[in-house]
C-alpha cells in the first residue's frame, strides 16, 4: 500500500480526550458516518416500488 492512505494508517491512532472520556479519531469518524447513515435512512425518500 502506498500514498496518503498508507501514511495515514502507518502511525498510532490520534485520541481525543475529555476528562475520563477518550475516543480515537478513526472510531469517532465511523460513529459519525453511522449516525449520518441513520439520519439519511429516515430523511431520504424510498424509491417508489411497484403498485
Amino acid at each position: 500500500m502506498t500514498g496518503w492512505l498508507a501514511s495515514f494508517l502507518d502511525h498510532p491512532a490520534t485520541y481525543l480526550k475529555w476528562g475520563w472520556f477518550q475516543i480515537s479519531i478513526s472510531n469517532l469518524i465511523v460513529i459519525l458516518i453511522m449516525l449520518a447513515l441513520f439520519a439519511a435512512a429516515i430523511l431520504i425518500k424510498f424509491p417508489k416500488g411497484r403498485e
Partner: protein
Amino acid sequence: MSTPTHEMWTARLRSSWQRNLPIEKLLPDDQPAYVASWIYVFGVATIAALGVIIASGIVLAFQGPAWYHTSDIGNFTNSMHFWSVQMFFAFMVIHLWGKFWMAAWRGNRVRTWITGAVAFVVSIATAFTGYLVQTNFDSQWISFEAKDGFNSVGVGAWFTVTNLGQMLLLHVAFLPLILGVLTLVHVLMVRRRGVVPPIDAIPANLEVRK
C-alpha cells in the same frame, strides 16, 4: 391422505408450523406500505454482510494462514472478511437504532427483539475470537491484554484467550453455528409476526395476523 394423528410429535409440529407460519407468510411477495423506507433496509443489509463473512471465511479456512498472510489474493480475501465484519456491525447497529426508536417489540414481537439482542452479543464474541485467530502480532497482543480481564472474572480456565486452538474452533464452528441459528430464528419470527409498523400507524395496522 389420512387425518393427522395428533399424538405424533411430527403431526403436532406440522400443524403448529402450518398454523403459525404458512408458506404465504414465510415467502411473502408483498409488504405493507410503511415498509417502503430506507430504515427497513438495514436488517437485510446485515444478513447480506453476514453472507459475505461466511463465504470469505470458508475460503480462509480452506486456504489457511500461510496463504492469506502472504499472497495478494489471500490478503484481499482476508481484508474482505475483515471489512464485511465492519459493515455487518455498522448495519446491525443502525438496524438496532431503528428498531429501538420504533419500539419494535410491540405487537407480541418481544421474542424477535430478544433473539436480535442475543445475536448481537454472540456477534461480538464471534468477532472477538476472530481478532484472536489472525495469527499475527495483533492477535497476540489482544489475547495477552484480554487474558487478565477474563482471569479476573474467573472464566479464564474455560475461555482461554491465549489458547489458539480453542479460539479457532469457537470462531469457525461453535459461535457461527449459534449465530446462524439465532439469525434464522430471528428472521422466521419477523416472517411470522410481520414487519413492525410505525408508532403513529392507525390501530388497525397494529393488529398482528394470527
